[in-house]
């Protein structure tokens, strides 16, 4: 304790013609158990009421507060100042459209993503309100939930060099989402249909294995494993008919 923290914060308000992108410095005395949530709110309330940033749950579960903290994307509400040096640099997430200062528009990007990978259960069955639910193995349900834990914070996309360079790359979050539906027996999409969604250079074959996604994901979703599985599955799907029989197992 007793430290004085210096915050270098990216500032730009696109709605204000007088504003141009620059860094602002603020200093705060550190308090016990301080998080960036506490710090940023203090800066806004005590020093500069125009500072834009996003928090929602402030409990690390909604994904609203992702920003670049000393170079790496992460959840601000989740970050304790005592784990950081005296100088803290905060930038908005790249890839996503800037709203202002530290706030970005993730909503539009993610909506686009849902449409592109058709992020929903595809089935031709109709819901019967009188019937019992279809059974499912508990272990499988837990596996699906494991991938469903993604909070769409966008960190994995903002950390991925591929996504930063190539606008049309789907990003780990979308690939993980598809892996989730592939696991789910309720989704009746065939391998071929999945292939059409991600068997491309915008999809799984665009991923260069940079693994920043895995290393920044605040939910520690096993992205590397999922991307690996997906690559194998899609790659083998493409060569299925040329492959000799004994190699045709399920990847």
């Amino acid at each position, binding site marked *: 304790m007793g430290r004085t923290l210096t915050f270098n914060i990216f500032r730009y308000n696109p709605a204000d013609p007088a504003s141009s992108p620059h860094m602002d410095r603020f200093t705060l005395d550190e308090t016990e158990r301080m998080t960036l949530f506490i710090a940023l709110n203090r800066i806004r309330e005590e020093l500069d009421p*125009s500072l*834009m940033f996003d928090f929602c749950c*402030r409990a690390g579960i*909604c994904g609203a507060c992702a920003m670049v903290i000393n170079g790496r994307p992460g959840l601000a509400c*989740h970050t304790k100042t005592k784990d950081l040096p005296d100088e803290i640099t905060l930038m908005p997430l790249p890839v996503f459209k800037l709203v202002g200062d530290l706030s970005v528009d993730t909503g539009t990007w*993610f909506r686009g993503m849902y449409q592109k990978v058709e992020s929903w259960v595809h089935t031709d069955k109709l819901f019967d309100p009188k019937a019992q639910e279809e059974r499912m193995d508990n272990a499988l349900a*837990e596996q699906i939930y494991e991938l469903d834990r993604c*909070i769409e914070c966008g960190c994995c996309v903002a950390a991925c060099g591929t996504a930063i360079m190539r606008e049309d790359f789907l990003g780990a979050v979308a690939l993980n989402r598809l892996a989730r539906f592939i696991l789910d027996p309720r989704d009746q999409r065939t391998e071929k249909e999945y292939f059409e969604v991600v068997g491309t250079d915008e999809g799984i074959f665009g991923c260069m294995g940079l693994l920043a996604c895995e290393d920044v994901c605040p939910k520690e979703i096993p992205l590397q494993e999922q991307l690996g599985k997906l690559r194998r599955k899609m790659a083998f799907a493409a060569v299925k008919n040329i492959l000799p029989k004994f190699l045709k197992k399920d990847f």
Partner: protein
Amino acid sequence: MQIFQTDLLCIGAGLAGERVAIEAADNGFSVICLSLVPARRSHSSAAQGGMQAALGNSAMGEGDSPDVHFADTVKGSDWGADQECARIFVDTAPIAMRQMAFWGVPWNRVVPGEQTYYKGGKPFTAYEKPENEGLIHSRSFGGTAKWRTCYTSDGTGHAVLYTLDTRAAQMGVEVHDKAEAIALIHDGDNCMGAIVRCLKTGELKAYLSRATLIASGGYGRIYRESTNAVICDGGGHIIALNTGVVPIGNPEAIQFHPTGIVPTDILVTEGCRGDGGTLLDVNQYRFMPDYEPEKAELASRDVVSRRMTEHMRKGLGVKSPYGDHLWLDIRHLGEKHISTKLREVQEICESFLGVDPVHQLIPVRPTQHYSMGGVRTDKDGAAYGLKGLFSAGEASCWDMHGFNRLGGNSLAETVVAGMIVGGKVVEFLKGTDTTFSTAAIRDAMHRQEARIADLVSCANGGENPYTVRNAMFDSIMKGAGIFRNGKDLEKCVSELQEILGRARKVGLRSGGKGANPELTMALKIEGMVKLALCVAYGALQRTESRGAHTREDFPERNDRDWLTRTLATWAPGADLPTLNYEPATQVFEMPPGDRGYGGGKIIPMDAPKA
């Protein structure tokens, strides 16, 4: 002025808003949902524990039925619930859970054979029937006779919201996020949509709709210590209240959760206690069985919160720089259980407290958690006061929760009410045509533009909106917290009235261009203080103790005089809400009686007038 037109406008894209939206979209109507944040960040995603529905698949849920669920709900509400709604709710809940399963929620499922569970910190085994293998499982939650809470690990709200949002995306429901409704467009009889401030650009837009739904969640953020997300500040309630004709039902009914962590007030799920977690005091002594021999830690929330406060007042709390607290102990559940079934809890403790719950105790205290009250609707979800206005979810007072909501009942309410109210909205849309009054639209728009111009130019004064808000926080927690009494409430009301005066004089220091956050706060602060006044004034008038509303000076539940629901409206320009009352329920399936926990005396309905 940009104008959007749609059949249904949902103000809120949490579970309730999206469920209604899906129903309307399914029936071919166009729907736009507004949300302050991308839909999936809505606060519904924070609910960890689960949702109640009497499926009765699990061993500990055997023999469960909607009737048992109904009895639990009404008892839980301390007979403040509208029993017609409670009935509709319990009957529909199992269908809604199955529908969620159909749409893709990865519910935890029954694993057959001997299973080890925990109750009161002790393990026991139960035999899960092989014929139920793979059906939706359930866990225990406070205040229920059976294990009835369907769950997915401890991310139930998250999993269900993600599923619903994918379904909404599939159905073509539009979600306009980072958009805040700041006023309803109405002519005193009909609701025609809302004036919306875009939180990306700061622009004002008009949304015209034939039906409008308020599903904006709770208003916990009128308290400083709240488990709610920072966006849960009553935006939907404020615009309803500002119409002058739409009442807020039971504003004083505020629930406190026993286990918010100290200092960040993040909730750790009731599932901790459901799975066998215990509460300890400064001497690491388990005190709950002394107060509640039968249910101990699993008594309903209001009871546990009160007992905790009572115990801390005896000086048995743990002192800390952030005030007194108690300990939650889940160490005996073991590493495996904690890191799978209670993983989010573990994450919260480690990231926000630096505490490892496998080996260490968790500091907790009762924290504002849920608002039972809200936009008063009839059993179809239609708001009182304006035609074409509906409400669902935590924002509404539909009113199955009365004065205390059971854990797991609110998440279930969002999808069940969403289904029911959605159906009624569809009926309404099929049966009515609306004429939009351009005068009303222009008038509503001009009024908001003028408000903003005044704030920016400090025309009414230069009060700092954050200072005003902090004053409100201080006042309401002292006056209308867990324990209430006439003296403190009176003081609180008069303080809040003074604060309201200041709220009307706020002005900006920062120019207000674009998505300016100070302007966002300034636009809301007057409404927040009004809501706080509804709470405090409602609590002051209600001279009894019922559910979460506990008056030290009136400890009895008074069914003779107060088996009623408060209806608070706000006349334009007034300094206090107008309070009216209606009977708590028109239909008595279950006459008022003893809850079986919580103690307390009851003045029966037929007791002679004092």
